[in-house]
């Protein structure tokens, strides 16, 4: 098919504005699937995605649309995640597109991530087509939102389709405008092959399946291709495009097209997202720019609950890394938890999702340590180290000063909640950077915040203090000097390395106290009293005690009770096996995780 009849686009939106629903509607309306075949949310085929109602991994689908002018068009729709943690993935998807459909909720209007995503799309030179969704809501104010888009973003929006993706109302307008307003791909199909890898998955039969966008030239079955960054050379076994939830093989894909290939690639490391595929025999002169490499922001230790599963965990992490280049990990050892990995994530949601995927898709039982950021430790000898594991903090006498990563955050909030959100930012050591009114009732608050303060429960706190109305986006903003200390937890006077963390000295006491309280509830009573202490260096700042078990005795044990008694004792012993032994204290795995979320309310 001619390039002029191809449209490669994505849908961008703030979370919950209806992006996935519109994607489903487009797939349905283009007739690739009948309504009866439609599962709800066709694109979200990962179990986890469907359950959480969010889109995690970018996915693509090809549909055929017969426009009002009678011509057929190929739509390559690339789905993108909406959460701030996944800007990196959004960026990958955008690089494969020529245009973007911007979905804005007719009731809520522009939100923080609407802006962030639009800017990302414009960065990639994409044409942006605004769509007003949820006009069936009683609170919908489409005209207000159209004005807002024009005022705040500066996009022409007067004839933006006003739709309800849920009911299907006016979705045809979107399809027509995609044809009319979004550009067709360019690129010379006869030039040497130049294709951008934007994703990949591992299949146990086919090996690595590479998702790519052909920028120039043509890729066909049997061709020898080279990955320009890794240098790996392989023979293309299969090329094809994306049906809804399935791969459809074809003979070739040419410039402007989006599809996949397999080439019996067994080594996950041979294909990196952002790399350029070229013809091994007739290579292009230089690779595509690829994407900006993103670095993890949040680190934590991940340990298999069963020590013997360590190789399985490594294997699973490698597979996940294949289509999630932002996930990083390296082996580490903990006295308390044994062998595991220090893993880096884009944010806390990313961490949670990886953790859940490891548990569900790979059946691993994990123990996760408290997430932290990368601190810069400047030593008195002039050396600077980047600290991802609190246990590696040098002796305080060797430390000159420490720095922590900062973010500049934008919080969009209705005026009635400005006060409470400002209080929240203040509590989280935020530095006020100004406020802009978007319209009479909505303002954009700007704060510099330590990343450390937002990785825990900032998002939840924000939602609860604004009755769900505040939205939030942030970007990294270098490092700032901070008064930080390492807080250690001692259980029965033994330091538990997996529970140590770095904290602002001003809140160390509070955090230490909460940790002790929480651990007191989590650690079962033993035959002896167990002190739980929080300490900075050798100074104990908080203490709780798990009282000794007073009574565990069976008053009666006669003939009929013996079998039952045995089962009871076996259960007791079994429970013990699931614990981590620190000195002579048994700590349930759960205890390591429960301290991750120390809520304010107690």
């Amino acid at each position, binding site marked *: 098919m001619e390039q002029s009849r191809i449209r490669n686009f994505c849908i961008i939106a703030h979370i919950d504005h209806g992006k996935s629903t519109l994607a489903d509607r487009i797939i349905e309306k283009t007739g690739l699937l009948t309504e009866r075949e439609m599962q709800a949310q066709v694109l979200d085929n990962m179990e986890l995605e469907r359950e959480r109602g969010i889109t995690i991994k970018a996915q693509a689908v090809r549909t055929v649309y017969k426009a009002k002018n009678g011509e057929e068009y190929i739509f390559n729709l690339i789905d993108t995640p909406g959460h701030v943690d996944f800007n990196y993935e959004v960026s990958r998807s955008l690089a494969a597109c020529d245009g973007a459909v911007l979905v804005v909720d007719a009731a809520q209007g522009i939100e923080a991530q609407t802006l962030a995503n639009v800017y990302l799309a414009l960065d990639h030179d994409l044409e942006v087509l605004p769509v007003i969704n949820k006009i069936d809501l009683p609170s919908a104010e489409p005209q207000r939102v159209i004005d807002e888009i024009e005022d705040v973003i500066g996009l022409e929006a007067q004839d933006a389709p006003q739709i309800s993706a849920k009911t299907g109302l006016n979705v045809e307008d979107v399809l027509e405008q995609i044809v009319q307003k979004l550009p067709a791909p360019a690129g010379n199909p006869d030039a040497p092959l130049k294709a951008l890898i934007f994703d990949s998955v591992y299949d146990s039969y086919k090996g690595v399946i590479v998702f790519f966008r052909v920028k120039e030239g043509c890729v066909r079955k049997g061709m020898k291709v080279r990955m320009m960054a890794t240098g790996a050379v392989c023979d293309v076994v299969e090329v094809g495009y994306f049906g809804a939830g399935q791969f459809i093989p074809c003979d070739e894909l040419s410039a402007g097209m989006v599809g996949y290939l397999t080439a019996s690639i067994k080594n996950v490391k041979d294909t990196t997202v952002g790399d350029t595929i070229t013809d091994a025999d007739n290579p292009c002169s230089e690779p595509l720019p690829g994407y900006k490499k993103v670095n993890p922001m949040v680190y934590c230790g991940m340990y298999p609950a069963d020590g013997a599963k360590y190789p399985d965990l490594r294997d699973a992490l490698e597979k996940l890394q294949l289509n999630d280049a932002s996930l990083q990990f390296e082996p580490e050892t903990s006295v308390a938890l044994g062998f595991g990995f220090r893993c880096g994530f884009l944010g806390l949601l990313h961490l949670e999702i990886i953790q859940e995927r490891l548990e569900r898709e790979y059946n691993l039982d994990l123990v996760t340590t408290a997430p932290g950021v990368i601190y810069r430790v400047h030593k008195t000898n002039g050396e600077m180290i980047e600290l991802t594991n609190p246990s590696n903090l040098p002796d305080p006498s060797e430390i000159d000063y420490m720095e922590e990563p900062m973010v500049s955050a934008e919080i969009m909030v209705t005026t009635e909640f400005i006060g409470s959100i400002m209080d929240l930012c203040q509590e989280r050591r935020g530095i006020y950077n100004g406020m802009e009114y978007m319209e009479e009732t909505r303002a954009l608050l700007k704060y510099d915040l330590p990343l450390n303060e937002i990785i825990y429960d900032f998002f939840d706190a924000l939602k609860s203090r604004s009755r769900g109305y505040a939205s939030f986006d942030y970007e990294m903003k270098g490092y700032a000097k901070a008064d930080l200390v390492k807080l250690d937890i001692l259980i029965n006077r033994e330091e538990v390395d997996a529970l140590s963390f770095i904290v602002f000295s001003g809140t160390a006491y509070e955090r230490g106290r909460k940790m002790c309280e929480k651990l007191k509830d989590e650690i079962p009573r033993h035959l002896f009293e167990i002190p739980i202490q929080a300490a900075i260096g050798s100074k104990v700042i908080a203490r709780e005690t798990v009282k000794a078990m007073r009574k565990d005795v069976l008053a009666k044990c006669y003939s009929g009770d013996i079998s039952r008694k045995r089962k009871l004792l076996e259960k*007791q012993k079994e429970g013990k096996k699931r614990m981590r032994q620190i000195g002579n204290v048994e700590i349930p795995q759960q205890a390591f995780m429960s301290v991750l979320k120390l809520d304010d309310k107690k």
Partner: protein
Amino acid sequence: MIKSKKGLYLHIPFCVKKCNYCDFLSAPAAEEDRKAYAACLKKEILAYRSAEYEADTVFFGGGTPSLLSANSIKELMQTLHTAFIIEETAEITMECNPETVDKEKLCAMRKAGINRISFGLQSAVDRELALLGRIHNYERFLRAYYDAREAGFENISIDLMSAIPEQTESSWEETLKKVIDLKPEHISAYSLIIEEGTVFYDRQKELMLPDEDTERQMYHRTKELLQNAGYARYEISNYARPGFESRHNLKYWSGAEYIGMGQGASSLLGGIRFHNPYDGRRYRESCENLTALRCEEERLTKTAQMEEFCFLGLRRMKGISEEEFRELFGRKLAEVYPGVVEGFVEQGLLAKQGEWIFLTEKGTDVSNRIFAEFLLDE
């Protein structure tokens, strides 16, 4: 395996009214049902005849065995003597609810060969008895007790319960003192366990139960008072004057063999643990066929025997003997359980004297934790 004469247990699964804490296999039954049951029981007893087992203890438990008619008791005793070789000096116990016996019945029991009575008193405070759902008051118990003495019973045990609803330390002491004054030969004092399927279990939240500390104080006070009165604690919940320890119950904690007869009764025989059907109809239908009666047969492996030797044996205050362990299993206890005894001795939970290893006072309170360490990985 411990070679010794068998203990015979007969389960009588009926009562006048179920108590609020009771999770035993027991329910009210009409006179003719009780008779029919006794008939089945006789058939089961006779089925053991050919094995010619020797026995030195007999225990009628329940339920309320004293609900059996004098005639049924006589016949059951005769049947037992027909089927088993019962030692002349055998200990033959019957559990009695004070409400169900009078002097005449007690005389008949004595005449039938019963030589030990175990009275379920539970408390000497009438209000507490009412809360437990007992059918008798203290006064009624006293009459039954003196009747039993007059009927010639020289070995009487009294069952008591601590940590029951609304009990205080002082009301518990009152119960203990009243009972001590009666000079029974044996006293069992159980801390109340709230079991699933009981009235108490469903009403747990509204029960005014003593807290854990009070409960433990009651327990330790029990030992103190009874010891001063000449009763030695010989098992976690059992006290006796010298020579009056329950020979039958000691079998359960010593690995000795016992044959349980009647609905739901458990046995340890030929190294196999099993029980009769819990279901009444199933029991009645197969009461003549010993093979058909056996449920959940489990042959005790050597490992299981070693484990039970320890976690049952340690219930006895004298504890377990390293010598005996080696004689029975051909291995040293310290080899099978490396470091276990030492660790608990260090924590003051077990003590050692010569070949004997036993629970300390502190160890008794948390004995389940200690017992769990005597399970082996298989």
